[in-house]
């Protein structure tokens, strides 16, 4: 039998959290296979196996954080059978190593104060894991208190699970960014109505020729039209960091609301250079990953302007709060039928309300207005997008 342990990927790696097993008991694995995803200080790392055989048992559970060297799984090499007795031995070992409750053993040879010993026994602390700070390395009450505190801490982490922790962090991040924005950025708002008749007609015709999986949604048109408008008015695609810094790459951050609350804005890189089909494919990939909190850090940090279409299917208008250090956020409302007067005639048309919230330190109303007009023009020529 082979013990598959939490690998050490660097001297600065002490432990890892098993996020997912990619194999189950009974699966055959070979050298080089990725069998687990482990979260580390540096992010999620795929863990490979260096042996060949059948997974006998997965010992560490998903969500558990274990130190480097902990046995995570048992692999039976080809041609080897494990006797019941041997198997029993295997199972005992990891339990001890993982320092679970119930495996407490007080070693009489340990140097420990009677009080410390008593507390340890009551609280179920494994003394073998404690380094004493008393005389001649003996364990004293202080050491036990520390161990209890640590245990409580690690317990919280394990039960909380990676995703919940991440969600909690997200709320804090949103709170701080939005407070900063409202405190520091002098917002101004512009709004326009855009007739979506041509865009939606084009979309309908175009989708007829597309396979089901390639069908476009209106949002792809909105993003593309925005990217094109930015090319005409690049000042909105910028950071305000001790002055205006225009950004060359157009990376539109697309706000995705999470079911449990919170919002993330993954960047769609270089939107201007992507076709509608590519944009749609990207959205199809990004949105589920965003909702599962599986975005790469680069995807979260690269956006240069933000779009919110929270209105889709709900409200008619969105007035956004700029995500610093960006200088603009664009809000698309729901596409609704409204009365539209043109050439002296009144008709009902599908209309979208677009708002621009912009940083007045960076840009002025005239530029903002030009940007919205460019957007409007672009959506009247969907075939050119």
């Amino acid at each position: 039998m082979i013990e598959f342990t939490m690998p050490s990927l660097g001297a600065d790696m002490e432990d890892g959290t098993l996020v997912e097993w990619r194999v189950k008991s009974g699966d055959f694995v070979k050298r080089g296979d990725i069998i687990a995803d482990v979260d580390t200080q540096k992010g999620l790392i795929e863990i490979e196996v260096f042996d060949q055989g059948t997974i006998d048992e997965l010992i560490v559970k998903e969500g558990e954080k274990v130190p480097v060297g902990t046995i995570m799984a048992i692999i039976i090499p080809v041609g080897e059978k494990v006797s019941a007795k041997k198997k029993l031995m295997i199972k005992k070992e990891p339990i001890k190593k993982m320092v679970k409750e119930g495996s407490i053993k007080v070693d009489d040879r340990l140097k420990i104060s009677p009080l410390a010993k008593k507390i340890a026994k009551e609280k179920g602390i494994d003394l073998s894991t404690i380094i004493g700070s008393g005389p001649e390395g003996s364990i004293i009450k202080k050491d036990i208190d520390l161990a209890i505190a640590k245990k409580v801490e690690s317990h919280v982490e394990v039960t909380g699970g990676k995703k919940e922790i991440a969600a909690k962090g997200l709320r804090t991040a949103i709170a701080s960014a939005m407070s900063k924005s409202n405190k520091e950025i002098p917002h101004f708002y512009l709004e326009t109505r855009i007739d979506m008749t041509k865009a939606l007609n084009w979309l309908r015709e175009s989708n007829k020729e597309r396979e089901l999986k390639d069908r476009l949604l209106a949002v792809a048109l909105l993003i593309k039209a925005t990217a094109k408008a930015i090319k005409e008015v690049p000042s909105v695609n910028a950071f305000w960091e001790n002055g205006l810094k225009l950004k060359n790459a157009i990376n539109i951050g697309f706000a995705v609301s999470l079911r449990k609350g919170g919002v993330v804005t993954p960047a769609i890189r270089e939107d201007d250079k992507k076709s509608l089909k590519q944009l749609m494919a990207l959205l199809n990939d990004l949105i589920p990953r965003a909702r599962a909190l599986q975005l790469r850090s680069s995807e979260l940090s690269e956006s240069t302007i933000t779009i919110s279409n929270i209105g889709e299917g709900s409200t008619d208008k969105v007035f956004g709060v700029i995500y610093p250090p960006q200088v603009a956020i664009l809000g698309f409302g729901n596409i609704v039928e409204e009365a539209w007067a043109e050439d002296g005639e009144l008709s009902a048309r599908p209309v979208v309300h677009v708002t621009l919230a912009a940083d007045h330190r960076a840009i002025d109303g005239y530029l903002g207005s030009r940007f919205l007009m460019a957007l409007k023009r672009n959506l009247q020529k969907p075939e050119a997008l």
Partner: protein
Amino acid sequence: MEKEGIKTNATISRELGLKLLHQMILIRRFEEKSAELYTKEKIRGFLHLYIGEEAVAVGAMHSLKEDDNILSTYREHGHALARGLDPGSIMAEMYGKQEGCSMGRGGSMHLFDASKRFYGGNAIVGGHLPMAVGMALASKKQGLNNITCCFFGEGAIAEGEFHESMNLAALWEVPVLFLCENNLYGMGTALRFSHSVQDLEKKGAAYGVESAKTNGMDLLEVKKAVEKATAYIKSTGKPYFLVCNTYRFRAHSMFDAQLYREKKEVDEWKKRDPILTFSDQLLQNELISGDDIDTIEDKVSKEVQKAVDFAEAGTFEPVEDLKKYVYSP
């Protein structure tokens, strides 16, 4: 027993084909083993794997002569193995044992073997380029006919030392081969985020250095390009800048979540695996058979195991020797 007909129009014998394929597979398996030993804490420090780039080291080293000087980077296991350093001495070095090729003092990033004219194992990006120019200068001054080959990654091209070295080498007309292994990422920063001009071979023109690029995923292409480069250097005495475009399949170092690139991109490049490419070329031209590959794998597996055994059996240098070689005895 030369046989024509390989895709690239290069000529290669069965014997040579087997030898080069063996070297590539040895590098691959040796490094896979190193990765494993790293996770088991046998090897520590930084471990930078060369997997995916084997065609460059093997193709280039084959075209260099015994009396040529070699300088490499911290991703140098491949170069050291292809240069003929004993796998056991390399593994022992990574274990920190005194039987290692640098007495265990350098580790993975600092493999040295003066007897093979293998001058590291240099881990400050760009830092060895000026030294390479100096070694070539010494060859010129002493009337030697050897060349100095300096391997470095595209990251080094952003360093001032690259530009200083190119200028000096051209100015002094010294026989140095600047061999850039462009694997597209300097640690986690892609080429496009670090260089205004991404066709790296164009940079030679600024210094009047003859430059070329080649497909670093194809051993025969590399071999051809390096042969051309060394012939040029030997006949003119001037420097040459060769960019081998390649890709590292593994992370930058072991502790790297690779947030900076898409898995899909890695998978695309893996389709161009230099070992598969070369073995296919040999198979298609009926220079070797599938059995030959099995034989190589068997042999390599024994060699790697022997290296590990050697390292395991090695000893640590006594602490009293710590001050040895700060200065010469």
